[in-house]
């Protein structure tokens, strides 16, 4: 820490003009609203209830917007030079590339799955089974 401590922020001068309570509060409100918006996918008004992918895409878009807001305003990137993208964009690209390359072997691992494994793997039918057991079984014993 002491090393950091030593660094007086001599560029602080740049930032003084920016920011300000009002802007931060606006960003804060936007973040809160966006967070609440993620829940929109759960509401009855959401049209794509049987296509979860749409909801996921929506929520990721919301998250990315939130991330942008935090990076741009709270992390002051909006007011500063673009050099920070030099670091973060390649990192983000590499991260994305890693995930994409993981898809065929891990994301689609069930394509090559062995019977021994499949036999012990949870299946959607198990969930149905449990749900059916829930309806039948609980009404029988009626714990509630």
């Amino acid at each position, binding site marked *: *820490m002491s*090393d*950091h*401590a*030593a*660094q*007086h*922020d*001599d560029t602080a001068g740049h930032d003084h003009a920016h*920011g*300000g309570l009002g802007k931060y*509060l606006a960003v804060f409100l936007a*973040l*809160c609203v966006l*967070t609440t918006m*993620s*829940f929109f*996918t*759960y*509401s*009855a008004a959401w049209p794509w*209830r049987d296509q*979860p992918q749409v909801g996921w895409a929506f*929520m990721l878009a*919301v*998250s990315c917007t939130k*991330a942008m807001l*935090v990076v741009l305003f*709270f*992390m*002051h990137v909006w007011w*500063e*030079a673009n*050099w*920070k993208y030099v*670091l*973060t964009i390649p*990192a983000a690209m590499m*991260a994305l590339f*890693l995930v994409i390359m*993981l*898809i065929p072997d*891990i*994301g689609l691992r069930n394509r090559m799955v062995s019977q021994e494994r499949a036999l012990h*793997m*949870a*299946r*959607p039918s*198990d*969930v149905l*089974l*449990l*749900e059916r*057991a*829930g309806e039948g*079984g609980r009404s029988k*014993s*009626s*714990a*509630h």
Partner: protein
Amino acid sequence: MSSPAISVPHDHGHHDHGHHDDGHHDDGHHGHLKLQYQPGLPLSRGKLIMWLFLSTEIMFFAALLGSYIVLRFGAAVWPKPHHVHLSEPIGAFNTFVLICSSVTVVLALEAARANKTGLAKFWMLTTLLLGALFLGVKGYEYQAKFSHGIYPAAPHGRIYERPDLYYGSAVRARLGEPAIIDRLKQLDDTPAADLTEQEVAARAALQQVRTMVADTNQQAFEMAVVADQIMPLPADGPGSEAHGGHAQGINDVFPWLQLPIVIPGGNMWASTYFLLTGFHAVHVVVGLIVFAVLLGYTLGPKNAGMIENAGLYWHFVDLVWIFLFPLLYLF
């Protein structure tokens, strides 16, 4: 080389005074020359190294999150949040807490720059408290998982993937443990009058479970019924009331039972959930330590750089949560 002949050709503006005025180093200074440097990027060393560090953190969380994404979307079944006692409102509340703390830390920075040291301290303290609150809520959530037996642990967690023979024999084995046999006997002998209505019902259900698993020739559906009695999976989709929305299982009524439970996909869920939130929590803890240290300083313009760097780190922690929250709680 004759030193006087060389004069520094340009004045390098404000950012290359860059000598580290490191406190620990100061006593050594009179010994050597104060060097001047070529202008590099228009920012302080502290800020640069912090951004570089954050880039490495991006890769760290990319590996964790990336693994989570492919493991999850490759799985045949993934539990719904309710199956694993994950509560969206609590998660959303924690998101809110972190957003607030992100605001307070910028406010602390602004206050410090404006030389309002008292105010800066106040905001810093608020940030610290918000961070602690976040951890507290996290701890509460963990506790809820643990108490339901939702964790991966050697040699086995209590989560079973499918209501099959293996599950049945695991329940049988648990019921056959000497300590449990005693408790069961005790329970059987308790007159119904001494029990609540719920307990009586649960006792009946338990009786049913015991006979069902005793028969080694069970069908999958019977095991599903057993699993449902022990810890029911809520059948309702999204939109239902959150935690507690499910009916109480035997495990909930008699916590000492700790019978194995069935959550399809639950083991991998638990593994990734604890991995991701665990490492996020570790980062929060580090942030709190930093804030605690900062509180020991005068938070004026002189130390604004420190606050800014700590803030950058804190915003990053917030950023990770911004992605964790929907991925873990809402998807």
